[in-house]
């Protein structure tokens, strides 16, 4: 649906050139929710703005629906933009227009017949559940309501893609959930491809099918969300994943020499990570029986990503060196990833 090929964008500032996006190639396939995550300044906003040429890339191609937008004439580009809806962190609704007029604006400019506009706008107002506020002005709405209006406005031209530039970053957690649900619903019911820019991993976790992790203008890792969460490769990716779960908290506790991380002789602290292929298997009780190893779980977490579970367990294994070694081998045989965090030793 949207394909970026070797896109590079440099901004000229008085302190010299800043390369915001460096040679990025990604492919957003039809019907998916594609997340782009990065810390601020990573270039993710610039990247999404290249997708509808709000920023014109210095190099590379932006292919939307088979057409290279960088080569399109202004008229063709505007036509394509109508098929790429966009929502923003600060909503950007027109303050002098009512909610109804904001949503209808784009159709009014096309000289669409009045009753057709009315049918469409009312339909969208129902979708965002704001029918009774249609004559209010944006300043009279809450942040979440404004974002819903801006979603309706973005959908009024029946776009194929919805670009979300930090769409939930200015909202509280509860409102964020409502907006994410709405976006997911639009994706499922209307088949609209979604590109989500965010700095929050839980947003990605919540609704994305695929994710690209950006750092300093480059995509450092990209892939299916389950793969990324279960087998992160890059340091940046791991950092983001840890922001969305507590599983790395243990490293802090070890550093602080917290009592639960004080191991006795014959004890080892391990991190077990598993996905759907091995969640149904009663591994812990199996090793206890087989190898005479006691296992006490000090942390456990299961993420459900696209309906498939990814589990993390941090536990203390107690037993002889051989038994623990065999248990770990047994885990690994079952596809569970094992990391020994710390070994007990004699003081």
């Amino acid at each position, binding site marked *: 649906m949207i394909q970026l090929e070797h896109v590079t964008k440099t901004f000229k500032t008085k302190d010299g050139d800043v390369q915001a996006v460096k040679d990025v190639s990604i492919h957003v396939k039809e019907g998916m929710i594609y997340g782009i995550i990065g810390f601020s300044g990573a270039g993710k906003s610039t990247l999404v703005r290249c997708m509808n040429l709000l920023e014109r890339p210095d190099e590379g191609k932006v292919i939307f629906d088979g057409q290279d937008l960088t080569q399109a004439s202004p008229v063709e580009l505007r036509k394509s933009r109508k098929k790429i809806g966009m929502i923003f962190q*600060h909503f*950007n609704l*027109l303050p002098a227009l009512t909610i109804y007029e904001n949503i209808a604006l784009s159709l009014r400019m096309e000289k669409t017949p009045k009753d057709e506009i009315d049918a469409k706008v009312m339909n969208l107002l129902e979708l965002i559940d704001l029918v009774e506020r249609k004559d209010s002005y944006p300043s009279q709405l809450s942040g979440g309501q404004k974002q819903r209006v801006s979603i309706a406005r973005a959908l009024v031209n029946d776009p194929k893609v919805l670009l979300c530039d930090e769409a939930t970053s200015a909202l509280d957690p509860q409102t964020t959930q409502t907006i994410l649900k709405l976006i997911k619903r639009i994706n499922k019911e209307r088949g609209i491809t979604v590109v989500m820019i965010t700095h929050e991993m839980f947003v990605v976790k919540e609704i994305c099918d695929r994710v690209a992790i950006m750092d300093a203008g480059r995509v450092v890792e990209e892939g299916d969300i389950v793969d990324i969460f279960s087998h992160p490769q890059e340091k940046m990716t791991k950092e983001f994943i840890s922001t969305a779960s507590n599983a790395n908290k243990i490293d802090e506790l070890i550093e602080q020499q917290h009592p639960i991380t004080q191991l006795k002789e014959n004890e080892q602290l391990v991190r077990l990570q598993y996905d759907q292929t091995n969640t149904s298997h009663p591994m812990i009780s199996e090793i206890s029986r087989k190898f005479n190893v006691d296992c006490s779980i000090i942390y456990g977490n299961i993420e459900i990503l696209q309906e498939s579970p990814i589990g993390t367990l941090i536990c203390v294994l107690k037993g002889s060196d051989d038994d623990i070694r065999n248990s770990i081998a047994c885990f690994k045989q079952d596809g569970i990833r094992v990391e020994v965090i710390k070994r007990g030793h004699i003081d």
Partner: protein
Amino acid sequence: MDTLTNWIPNVIEYSNLFPQAIVDTLIMLFVTGVISLLIGLPLAIIVVVTKPEGICPNKTIFFILDKFINLFRAIPFVILIPMLSDPTRWIFHTTIGIKMAFVPLIVGTVPFVARQMESAMEEIPEGIVEASISMGMSPWQIVRHVYLKQNIPGMIRGMTIVLIAVIGQIAIVGTVGAGGLGDLAIRFGWQRRMNDITYVVLFLLLVIISIIQMVGDWLVKKTTH
């Protein structure tokens, strides 16, 4: 009546001059306001869209227009009047009366209106313009629906400031033969030492300015959502 004759004898004596002076001032105000807006607003639009970060950046047009506006803003109004006496004579075949005042008044006010309208349009958040671009709006549509319509309160505020400043300039052109309340204050109040006329003129100007300000504030309130 007797007390009035005691308090403001000259005003009573020359009271027949006042209606004409008020009308002249209001005509100059109205004509200058309307024509300056008609010329200044398009100039402001051109400046806003041709800015380096505007929707149709054009360095040459922006540079020339921006400097041109600054140039005319820099000329003190009293110098503008003699400077423009030749074109005035050429257009109206006269350099006295309220007609003579229009040329310097408009030339002096247009750049002021342009700057005020420019800053009102600049107040519209960049994100709103971006959202409009992302909706596939053409530059002309953005001018019509965003720049011209999304900060009308700001534009009204700007015009209120302009009109009040124009009242001051009308008084100045009055001193060089254009008529109006300023003329009255100078010729009678100052030159013939009729202080009461000066004070009444002052009072009338205060009333006019207050009305402009009140109407402006009311319109701002009406158009703010």
